[in-house]
């Protein structure tokens, strides 16, 4: 329930800030010098700029200062980091990519607002986490998706996956990923049409009729090298869902997040690294290095490793936990890509590892300073 009175508020011992000082005329010594001059003419000069007798100060526990970071700034950084990839998608597929994104973001924010209003919870849409979920859902859709699909995805992600579990930080699986899996398994046919690059769609195109291109991953599964070059895969001149096409721009976004201290290197490096090692050592094609690079650059691996697997709520908070989690994601991804029923394994891999986060944290608890593994208590 809402608790606006905050009975346990750490500042509660203090008197109300406004009543903090008895402002007898002529004794408002705590104002600026100018004010003092105006109001204290009858008071001896030595008496100005001193505390009044009835000053009430706030008493609260340390620390008394705080860094300027906030949840909103972090989420804004994620949005900024994803923008180049979105702009690229608009360039490749036309304005419809943006339409889908806007619908998705707006529905996520509105569903969160709606849920919090009817449940009488504090409204937290200002932290921008719903907007991030919305953007990620859209980036996981093909440009040909019907316009109502992101709306249903948003409903599923925000209400079912996030809010019913307690809201931000409490959800067990990544809302955007859950929505992606929900959409892909419910409307497989509608969602499987991934057109060739530079087949533009106008912003308002309601229904689309496109010829699906063969995605590189589907070919790789059968051990066939795709025709698209590695360079085209890197810069994003290839078919794919809205957000996954340009590996380069996604990596640039990842570097931005690293520099801004939003994410650490552990998960992306462990994830992509383990995929690289396994596909290089156990390739399905004679050219193992090339096969490995195709595996890394195609599909949703970069998007997943940098932006989805690093979701705070659903990834471990210890460094060792993050490494194990990343490797787990990588191994499951390769397993699904090699042996699974789908050509893409990133979503399922991350979601399976999401379920293990508490145990990863629990068993990778750092050894406390001055404690050895033996007397870890």
């Amino acid at each position, binding site marked *: 329930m809402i*608790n606006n009175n*905050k009975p*346990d*508020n*750490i*500042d509660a011992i203090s008197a109300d*800030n406004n009543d*903090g*000082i008895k402002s007898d005329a002529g004794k408002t*010594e*705590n*104002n*600026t*010098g100018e004010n003092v001059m105006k109001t204290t003419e009858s008071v001896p000069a030595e008496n*100005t*700029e*001193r*505390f009044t007798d009835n*000053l*009430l*100060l*706030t*008493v609260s*526990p*340390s*620390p*008394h*200062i*705080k*860094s300027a*970071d*906030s*949840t909103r*700034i*972090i989420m804004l950084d994620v949005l900024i980091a994803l923008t180049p990839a979105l702009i690229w998608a608009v360039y490749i597929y036309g304005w419809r990519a943006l339409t889908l994104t806007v619908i998705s973001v707006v529905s996520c924010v509105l569903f969160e607002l709606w849920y919090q209003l009817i449940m009488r919870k*504090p409204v*937290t849409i200002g932290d921008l*986490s719903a907007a991030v979920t919305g953007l990620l859902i859209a980036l996981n859709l093909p440009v040909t998706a019907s316009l109502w699909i992101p709306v249903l995805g948003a409903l599923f992600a925000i209400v079912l996956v996030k809010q019913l579990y*307690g*809201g*931000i*930080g*409490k959800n067990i699986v990544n809302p955007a990923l859950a929505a992606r899996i929900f959409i892909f398994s419910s409307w497989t046919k509608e969602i499987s049409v991934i057109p060739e690059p530079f087949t533009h769609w106008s912003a308002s195109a309601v229904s689309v009729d496109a010829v699906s291109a063969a995605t590189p991953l589907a070919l790789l599964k059968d051990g066939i090298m795709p025709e698209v070059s590695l360079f085209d895969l890197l810069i994003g001149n290839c078919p794919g869902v809205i957000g996954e096409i340009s590996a380069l721009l996604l990596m640039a976004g990842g570097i931005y997040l690293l520099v801004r201290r939003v994410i*650490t290197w552990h998960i992306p490096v462990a994830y992509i690294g383990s995929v690289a090692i396994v596909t290089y050592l156990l390739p399905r094609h004679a050219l193992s290095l090339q096969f490995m690079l195709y595996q890394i650059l195609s599909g949703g691996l970069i998007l997943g490793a940098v932006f989805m697997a690093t979701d*705070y*709520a659903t*990834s471990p*908070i*210890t*460094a060792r936990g993050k490494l194990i989690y990343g490797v787990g994601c990588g191994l499951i991804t390769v397993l699904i890509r090699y042996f699974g029923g789908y050509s893409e394994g990133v979503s399922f891999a991350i979601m399976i590892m999401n379920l293990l986060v508490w145990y990863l*944290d629990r068993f990778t*608890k*750092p*050894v*406390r*300073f*001055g*404690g050895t593994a033996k*007397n870890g*208590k």
Partner: protein
Amino acid sequence: MNRRLSFRGGFHVEEFKNTRKSKIQRMPAPERLSIPTLQHIGAPCLPKVKAGDIVDYGQCIGDVNAGLGCPIHSGVSGKVVSIDEKINVFGAKTKHIVIENDFEDRMSQEITPFTKSLADTNLEEIIDIVRKAGISGMGGATFPTYAKINSAVGKVNTLIINGAECEPYITADHRLLLEHPEKVINGTKILLKALGLRQGFIAVEDNKLDAINKLEDLLAGSELIKVKIMKTKYPQGDERQLIYAITGTELPAGKLPADVGCVVFNAETCAAIFNAFIDGTPLIERVVTVDGDCIKTPKNVMVTIGTSYRELIDFCGGLKKRPYKVITGGPMMGTAIWDIDAPITKGTSALLVFSSNYADLYSDTAACIRCGRCVEGCPMHLMPAYLASFAQNRDFDICAEFDVMSCVECGLCAYNCPARVPIVQNIRTAKAALNEKHRKEAEKKIAEEHKYISEGKKAENGNDKQQ
């Protein structure tokens, strides 16, 4: 320049060392001093004076022989007005000796410089002087210095002088090292002599390179004392982190530095020891950094102990904004006070006055987003996010399992928390609850033992009667 020493974890918090260029100014002793009889960790002093007595500058006015006593002295000559019982800023009832300054500056007969050379001095003499001068740790923990020397003798091989000063705002030790490096160096020599060591380290963070250069110039080629340059990172000045950075040894929980062969003294404590030797002056004044967005002219001030916060603020030009919070000590670990007339004590390193811009830093309804910054920064390598949420659910046993008792409450997790969770406060709740639980368990055990003994006695008595 040398390698920067450091530890794993920690974070470079914004420094706000606004007063780094402000020379230490001496504040004239005020008309009235209020000197608490308890300014250290240990037993409170018994007043040696009574109302109406005339006291001299530097005269001992209180002492106690029992458990860790540390004498107190008058910083002015004048008349004892009263001995009041007041609640000090930490909430404990303490006697305060109030002295009215007669501005005659009569020196006490007790102040006599130590004339022997250091080479002829022995441990007992040093401990006696340090005790008589009433020196206790000036970094904030206020452990009596003579007791620390005593407990370290024969056990330690590394002496560390703590000039790291990692708390934001505070520059008192920085200015001291810059303006009076010889005092700190000579104080270190006295400590080395007392401890029978051949080498000591002065640890300074690399945001004080001017002070480091000065020390290195003075110590050029010295084998006795070496300057150790620390990475500027909070909480570098915590003695556990300092010991680790210099010796590579992690101090196990519940152990004293002496158990791993180290002893750490604050830089200003060293200077106080030197003063006690060279002039015979007891600890009656100290450097206090006065800062915060409400203070008109932030300064470093040499203040007579017993001066009130109010007078010190007035000495710094008064206030320019409406005060919201007054803090004694640094902003990360200092204590917010409610009584502006409370006195400056031996452990007051800073006085910060903040406006309501510093209100509402934390929120009880904030949701942890699990970003992991608290885990990354925790110098004790704990998981503050989990500890805070377990504590909030009052699940204190699992807090204990996650090493909550190792928390040093440095405040870094709460400082870095983007979700504004009052992490440290939640952890304190858990620690207090667990301490209470252990206390009750211990009491119960003792009560049971007593019962057992008394029952045994009864049984014995019964046997006696039968016989």
